[in-house]
Structures are given as C-alpha cells and as structure tokens.
C-alpha cells in the first residue's frame, strides 16, 4: 500500500501582476484575468535553478512529514522547464538533499509530470520505500515576453511542490489511478528553441474532455459519485478549464481547490503546490475521497484517487 504523508512547496518572492505583464505581450490586465483567472504569478530570481527550487520544496515537505532525506528510498522529479536536458534536475535535487546514492529519476513532462510522479510513486513505494515526488518549474524562462508569446506568457509562473509517498504512514491511502498518453497530439504543446509553444484551443479541447473522462473512470471503478469527493485537486492550468471540468462532472466549482489566481500556471509544480496549500488549510482529518487530476504535454493525462487512511470501503 502507499499513503500520502505530506506535501511541501516553495514559491519565489517576486510577484508579477497582470498590470506589469500586459504591456509586454500587447494585452490588457482585464483580458488576462478573463481568459485565465490569473491575477499574478511568481518569477524566480536569475540565480534560482529548477533543481534548487525543487530542493527547497522537498525540504519543506520533509519538514512537514517529520522525516529526513535519509529516510527516502527514491526521488522522482517532474519538470518541463529544466535548466539542462541531460542530466535533468533529479540527480541535483538528490544531491541538494545530501543524498549520494538514492535513485533519483527525471520525469520530463510539463503540467502532468507531478501526477505521473504520484502514480509511479504509489506503484514503486512497496519496493523502493518512501518516494519523494517533486515538481519544479521555472517557466518564466520558457516563455517569450512579447506579442508572439502572449498565449503562454500570460499563463505561466515559477514554483516548486513536493509530496512524500510512504508505505506505512500518511493521512490518505492512494487507492486507484489511471494514466494515459496520446503522442499523436504531441504537437499542441511542446518546447522548441527553449520556449513553450501551445495551440491553446486544442489543449483546452483535449483537456476539457480527457480530464473528466479520467476522473469519471476512477469514480465508476470505485463506486463513487462526484458528490462524495471531499476535494478535487487539479493541475492549475487555467481557471476556466477547471470550471469546465467541474461542469462536466456536474460538481460545484468550490469543491475544486484553486490557487491559480495568485501563482499562475506553474506547470508540473502546480498540482503539488495546490495540494500543499489545500492540506495546510485542513483543520480536521480527511473525511472523504480526494481526486487528483492533470493534463499536459505528451499528451499525458490521468487521475488519482486517495481515500481516508482508515477507509474500509475501497
């Protein structure tokens, strides 16, 4: 079995408002808010690295778990914006945590990377022990801050999140998951010459159909109704997209935790940053199921179901 034990996150201090960004990309602050739900995002400092901010989120997660890095059996690091293609940031995150031999693997997938990490962690933990999943992104270096880069520049921000998946201890048991890849549509979201390119309409079209489908698959397989889910934690891609998913599931939007207004779309970091903020806001033990879902480059998408630790029905 695998359990969600703790989350962690790290956000840069520099806030970039729509007022600051809009003139750079020939847009208005109001338009950015309307099409994305984003009010501001954070930008990393020039000296920050993807691995470095990943370490900071990992340390926050370990501290909240009351665990040490030495207790981690494996590290998975998701990033679509890593400073270097090969080796990716995973080995540097491990080194930054003071680990010299713990296996550390990269998941070079934007947006859906940390969901993939959680799903893999749940499957690997029985053999590897505790798995630390990190999502770290400096997306501000992967967008073009001019008119041609408008559709990505308005969305993306920087940050890192982390989760500790444990074989024995945790507040929720990972009960089920599904993961899909469709490479035939990979060209709708990709990196070229260091910048992200996105066919926004196609991404939204795919995501607004695929994420509800994945979530419904898990709900049906586990004899659950969407109304029974305590909280939906989604990749913070776009507030309008999250609203679409909520509508498709016939579930009120307020059941979906969102923080995209303050951080923008932090790609593969966003799911874990959201999870960390959501978890910090909980004042009592988990009473119902949690659904995680994400969609991203690849195309990759899926969902994960976690249930209260003592739940006997699933």
């Amino acid at each position, binding site marked *: 079995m695998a359990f969600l034990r703790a989350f962690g996150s790290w956000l840069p201090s520099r806030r970039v408002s729509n007022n600051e960004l809009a003139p750079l990309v020939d847009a208005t602050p109001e338009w950015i808010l309307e*099409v994305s739900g984003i009010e501001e995002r954070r930008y990393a400092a020039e000296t920050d690295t993807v691995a470095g901010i990943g370490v900071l989120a990992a340390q926050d997660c370990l501290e909240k778990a009351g665990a040490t890095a030495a207790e981690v059996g494996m590290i998975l690091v998701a990033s679509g914006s890593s400073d270097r293609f090969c080796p990716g940031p995973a080995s540097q995150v491990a080194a930054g945590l003071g680990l010299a031999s713990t296996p550390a693997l990269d998941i070079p997938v934007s947006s859906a990377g940390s969901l993939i990490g959680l799903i893999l962690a749940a499957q690997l933990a029985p053999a590897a022990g505790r798995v630390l999943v990190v999502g770290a992104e400096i997306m501000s270096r992967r967008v073009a801050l001019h008119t041609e880069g408008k559709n990505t520049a308005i969305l993306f921000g920087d940050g890192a999140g982390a989760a500790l998946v444990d074989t024995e201890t945790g507040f929720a048991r990972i009960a089920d998951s599904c993961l899909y890849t*469709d490479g*035939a*549509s990979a060209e709708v979201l990709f990196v070229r010459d260091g910048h992200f390119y996105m*066919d*926004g*309409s*196609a991404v*939204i*079209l*795919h995501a*607004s*159909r*695929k994420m509800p489908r994945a979530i419904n698959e898990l709900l049906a397989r586990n004899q659950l109704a969407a109304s029974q889910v305590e909280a939906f934690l989604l990749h913070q891609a776009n507030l*309008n*997209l999250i609203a*679409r998913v909520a509508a498709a599931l016939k579930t009120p939007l307020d059941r979906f935790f969102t923080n995209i207004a303050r951080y923008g779309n932090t790609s593969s970091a966003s799911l874990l940053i959201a999870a960390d903020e959501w978890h910090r806001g909980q004042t009592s033990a988990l009473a119902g199921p949690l659904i995680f879902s994400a969609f991203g480059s690849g195309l990759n998408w899926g969902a994960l179901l976690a249930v209260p630790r003592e739940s006997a029905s699933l």
Partner: protein
Amino acid sequence: METQARILKVLHKVSGKEISPAADESLFVSGLLDSFALTDFVTGLEEEFGVTIPDSDLSARKFDTIGKVEAYLAAKRQ
C-alpha cells in the same frame, strides 16, 4: 433541416449570438467561438448529429468554419 442550418443551431446555442457567418468565414474571427466555446461546440455537434468525435480529431482547424464542419460531418457519415 439541412446540415448547415443544424450546425448554425448548435453554434447559436453555444455562443448565445445569432450571427450567421459565411461558410468559409472563421468562427473565431467572427466572435462566435473562443477556445472554451469550441469545446461546447464539438460536444453540441456530437449530440445534434449523433456522432462521436474521436480525440484524434480534436483540432480547432477542423471546426473553425461552417464549411469545414459540414465536410467533416459528411466524411463521418460515409
């Protein structure tokens, strides 16, 4: 009802606008569709015409004019 009229019916319902663009006019430029309305448009077409639009066809370019939508639906019926 002919195909174009049925497509327009879906379009008007999704957009809330009674604009009737030419068959080759961009539905995005004419203000009838945006990225999010496109999703509703595709779902509406599935319901109106009783077809399933597979993920491999989820491209805005296939649905950005009434003429393209009509051709797409005709191909689906063959």
